[in-house]
């Protein structure tokens, strides 16, 4: 309860400070727009975290075969998909402001799109398999397979697309000086977003636990 209010205050502070405190980036005409850095990058990082979490839960499902790990893996993937989508939308808005188009196949745009497609396919698969245990096993296997391919995108996508759009890559973000205020505000925002993820995960996880218990009880009732 207390933690919830603490999180609310921390998040509000991170938003307010992000807009007011750090100096805008000098020497760019989109200097003020660079503040999106404090919201966009943490969301992207949290979505990677959520997908890694989902993969770990999938491995756990295949080892232990407990339905609850499968529900949790789907939940983590769902939350990751939300964060991933928000990161893509905010990034796209920034691209419009900084480079003039919403989408230009920049390596990072491409890789986040691929991530969205992977987890979109993950949910399409879940919807297409009616049998619960089979669905759990198949989606866990798919999640692991997809995770194995991700490092290749890190290697191959920049190699191909940087050569096509050298002027438009996010390298300019490397010029953002990660010192002093910037680092503090960024970390604050990152911690807030990560806490929001774990808070949401925790609520839905409790719902999963209750649902599971209800199912077991109704099963026991039917036996009696």
């Amino acid at each position, binding site marked *: 309860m207390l933690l919830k209010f603490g999180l609310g205050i921390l998040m509000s502070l991170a938003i307010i400070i992000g807009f007011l405190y750090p100096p805008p980036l000098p020497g760019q005409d989109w200097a003020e727009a660079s503040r999106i850095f404090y919201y966009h990058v943490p969301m992207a990082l949290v979505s990677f975290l959520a997908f890694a979490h989902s993969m770990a839960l999938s491995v756990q499902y*295949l080892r232990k075969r407990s339905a609850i790990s499968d529900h949790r893996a789907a939940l983590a993937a769902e939350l990751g998909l939300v964060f991933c989508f928000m990161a893509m939308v905010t990034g796209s808005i920034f691209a419009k402001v900084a480079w003039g188009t919403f989408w230009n196949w920049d390596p990072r745009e491409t890789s986040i799109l*691929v991530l969205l*497609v*992977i987890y*979109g*396919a993950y949910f*399409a*698969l879940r919807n*297409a*398999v*009616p049998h619960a*245990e*089979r669905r759990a*096993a*198949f989606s*866990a*296997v*798919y999640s*692991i*397979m*997809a995770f*194995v*391919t991700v490092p*290749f*995108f890190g*290697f*191959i*996508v920049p*190699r*191909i697309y940087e050569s096509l759009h050298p002027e438009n890559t996010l390298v300019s973000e490397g010029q953002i000086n990660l010192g002093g205020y910037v680092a503090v505000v960024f970390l604050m925002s990152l911690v807030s977003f990560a806490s929001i993820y774990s808070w949401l995960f925790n609520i839905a996880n409790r719902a999963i636990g209750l649902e599971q218990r209800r199912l077991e009880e109704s099963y026991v009732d039917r036996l009696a």
Partner: protein
Amino acid sequence: MSDLVRKVLSLAAKDVRCELRTRYALNALLMFAVVTLVVIGLTAGQGEHSSHMHASLIWIVILFSLMQALSGGFVKEEESGTADTLRVYAEPRVVYLGKLLLGLALAWALLIVLVPLYMILMDLDVNSISQFLLCLLLGSTGIAASTTLIAAIVSRASIKGALFAVLSFPLLLPVLLSAIFATEVVLRGGEWNDMWPYVKILIAYPIIVVTVSYMLFDYVWEG
């Protein structure tokens, strides 16, 4: 070990024999490739195309044709009700490797028909035919190898065709992109050194995906 090889080969031989008798996948695959190629030839056959355009077109035809056929190996077993018999008689790893060989055979059969036709219909000149064939062979091997496990998953889902393409796409993207760019280098008449990074991916990626699939196949097949 040699026992495993013998079993895998006999399973693959059974599948190839069935395929040659019924033409379950082969006719659809080849006709799909020819039809797509004719559409491309009619709409874009005239005029000069850049090497990048040719590389993209030929790989799009190969990709979509293979998407029609590669799920067939498993789907056919489920539809004809022979999958359970196969579960009784063969170990999972034998089934996986056997179906992998069938997929490779289909992919190579497609190349034999498609590549000469494409070169004739689209008036394509290739400087180094051996490097061109190497790219095509490695790329289609990669496509067949990385979709075998997905085919096994899809064969037991309620919708099959669309789901196969959707699930395969992310796994195929590294193969497809490297294959297109390697082919582009060949068609442009580029150096082997420009091609080598892509060829490295085309060799490494299927090995990794097949290894992971081999480890995970039990969960899909017996589930």
